[in-house]
């Protein structure tokens, strides 16, 4: 296998407290070594050498929340297009949500996703299975699905209202060392809701979803995690109240609670739906500036563990509709980095913290071997130019889902090389 040399980049790897100019050498799919420029050992075999002076080199990003729509809704996205979008966005591993057709609640569907990703995928795909079987009666077979390659179980899109079932799930998952990814939304409070309950729902007459619909669910799940000791990962938290609840739990010493936030929730507010803009229709809904500020604070102070995109591609069929009829969701894999870099540019976090949020921490949550550039680790590497400006156009996106409120906007920061296990899966740099 050809060796890869990434020469003189700014190597940021919080897993080994590194943020300095280094050369990274990759051999046989693994990180071979990291060397001060000038101290590199000679590389005898075939070598691809990239001069990455001025660019950031870091462990590949890991997205805990991606809808690949495969099997069953391939007109929206499939494993090939979704993983290409991931590669372009700098993600070397994505966790595939189970709300496919059929849903991923059997080892057979898990195995299909793993196999298909091996055949046509550009990056690693690790499936998350459903917590409760689609017929609603019992837990999915966690053990068999973990054997087939599942890394987590989730109720994404439809919260497990039955507290007893969720309690059992948290207990049972402990046997297999996998987290439960909860979509905190009390349906009795959110049903029929289209956007955040607040100023925009008043102005537009659309049914609102109050923050409390999320917060009562966050609170219940934290209590169940307290009861069971199971690993609870809260998906896409969006409100100030949720951040406060997680912070409180962490201050009480609960190490078994983690959470994620999406780039659209920390970048936008409910005002993005003005004019009945369906590209900003998403669950949980975009909230207020007050909530957004709380998310920024949570990203800074460590309450929030990671950034996940909740990449939810839809076609024009689902989005070019009357607002009530339009699907929820934002296509997010390819805009995550520039939006996250805004956090650095605006002084909220350091670049090193950004790499933690996009790589190191998500790796830890699903016990992935990625998230590090330590010698011997799989060579999952992302190289990006933090200042390269580009315009978000339908043509610029590899995802079939062009449903993003950032369409037509210019964003700063772009991935230039993505390497998965020593294979270059995306590159705009010349050797």
């Amino acid at each position, binding site marked *: 296998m050809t060796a890869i040399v990434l020469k003189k980049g700014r190597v940021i790897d919080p897993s080994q407290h590194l943020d300095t100019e280094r050369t990274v050498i990759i051999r046989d799919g693994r990180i071979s070594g990291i060397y001060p420029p000038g101290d590199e050992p000679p590389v005898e075999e075939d070598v691809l050498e990239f001069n990455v002076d001025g660019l950031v080199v870091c462990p590949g990003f890991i997205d805990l929340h991606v809808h690949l729509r495969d099997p069953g809704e391939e007109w929206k996205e499939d494993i090939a297009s979704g993983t290409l979008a991931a590669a372009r966005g700098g993600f070397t591993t994505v966790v595939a949500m189970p709300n496919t057709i059929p849903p991923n609640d059997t080892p057979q569907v898990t195995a299909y996703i793993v196999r298909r990703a091996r055949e046509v995928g550009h990056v690693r795909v690790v499936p998350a299975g459903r917590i409760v079987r689609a017929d609603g009666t019992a837990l999915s077979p966690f053990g068999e699905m973990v054997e087939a390659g599942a890394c987590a179980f989730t109720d994404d899109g439809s919260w497990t209202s039955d507290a007893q079932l969720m309690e059992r799930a948290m207990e049972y998952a402990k046997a297999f060392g996998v987290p439960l990814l909860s979509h905190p939304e009390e349906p009795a409070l959110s049903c029929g809701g*289209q956007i955040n*309950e*607040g*100023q925009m*729902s*008043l*102005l*537009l*007459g*659309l*049914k609102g979803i*109050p923050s409390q619909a999320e917060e009562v669910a966050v609170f219940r799940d934290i209590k169940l995690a307290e009861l069971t000791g199971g690993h609870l990962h809260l998906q896409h938290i969006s409100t100030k109240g949720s951040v406060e609840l997680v912070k409180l739990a962490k201050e009480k010493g609960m190490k078994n609670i983690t959470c994620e936030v999406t780039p659209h929730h920390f970048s936008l507010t409910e005002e993005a739906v003005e*004019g*009945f803009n369906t590209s900003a229709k998403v669950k949980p809904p975009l909230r207020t500036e007050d909530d957004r500020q709380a998310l920024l604070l949570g990203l800074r102070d460590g309450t929030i563990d990671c950034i996940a995109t909740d990449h939810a591609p839809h076609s024009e069929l689902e989005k*070019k*509709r*009357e*607002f*009530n*009829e339009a699907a929820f969701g934002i296509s997010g894999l390819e805009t995550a980095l520039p939006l996250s870099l805004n956090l650095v540019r605006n002084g909220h976090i350091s670049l090193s913290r950004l790499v933690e949020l996009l790589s190191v921490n998500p790796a830890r949550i699903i016990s992935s071997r990625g998230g590090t550039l330590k010698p011997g680790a799989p060579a999952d590497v992302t190289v990006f130019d933090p200042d390269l400006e580009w315009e978000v156009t339908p043509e610029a996106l590899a995802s079939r889902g062009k449903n993003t409120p950032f369409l037509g906007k210019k964003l700063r920061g772009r991935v230039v090389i993505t390497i998965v296990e020593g294979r270059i899966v995306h590159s705009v740099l010349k050797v």
Partner: protein
Amino acid sequence: MSFPERGLIGIRALRREDIELILRTARSMKDISKRDVKKVPALRGKTVANLFFEPSTRTRTSFELAAKRLSADVVNFSPSGSSMAKGELMLDTVKNILAMNVDALVIRAKPEGACEFISQHVDVPVINAGDGMHEHPTQALLDALTMEEQFGTLDGLKVLIVGDILHSRVARSNIYLLKNFDIEIRVCGPPTLIPRGIESMGVKVFYHLQEALEGVNVIMMLRIQMERMQGGHFPSIHEYSKFWGLTAEILDRHAPPDAVVMHPGPLNRGVEITPDVADGARSVILYQVENGVAVRMAVLYLVVGGGR
């Protein structure tokens, strides 16, 4: 581009001078309807399509009469017995009607934002005849015309809206309109039917009708939809009418003697309003209906081209 070029999607986008222009035009249109020959050639050769994706009698009839009194040709479309029942999308239906070269669309539809959505995808003006819980702009305009006739001016009035504010496009459009004037706006109803945070729209909230009626000039009663009871918004029709229904006794005891009573219809007699109030001397409900035609004539005239 806004009013009148794009049509009339909502009151929210209008400025005070737009509202005053429509009301002024409507006043001159009223005379036409009182003539022996109730027709002027202002929109001769123009075609207006009435697309009512949701049932309506008075609004559709009112728009139809308004267009005909301006000599426009009118086509009426309602989904029953049409291809909508076969699953055609609303936008495709609209585009099919437009391909027959119509000059303006009057649309009523259930989804909030439907008129905005359609107007973004067609190049003729769209007039909103009610979209879900969003807006019903011509209703608010006819209400304003009625108030202005009763009191000579809008500035200085106190207007009370009673009932299901939460689900009401009429309330929302009225609030947007009245805020352009020096008007005290009050809303009253069970707290479950008043949107949280509505104070931020510049209205005062009351839960007790007697209290809300003190000193008002206009009392606008909204229709209570029976299905809200199943949704748990209030326990029974009986209890609703006991606390929020307008009776002659409450009206006489708590409202000033010159206050008028309005209702956008259709009425639930004995629920939100008793017959003696609906048919009484202070009721201006039928003037509202009459003014509806005049306001719609004015909007069509300004939008469809006669006004430019």
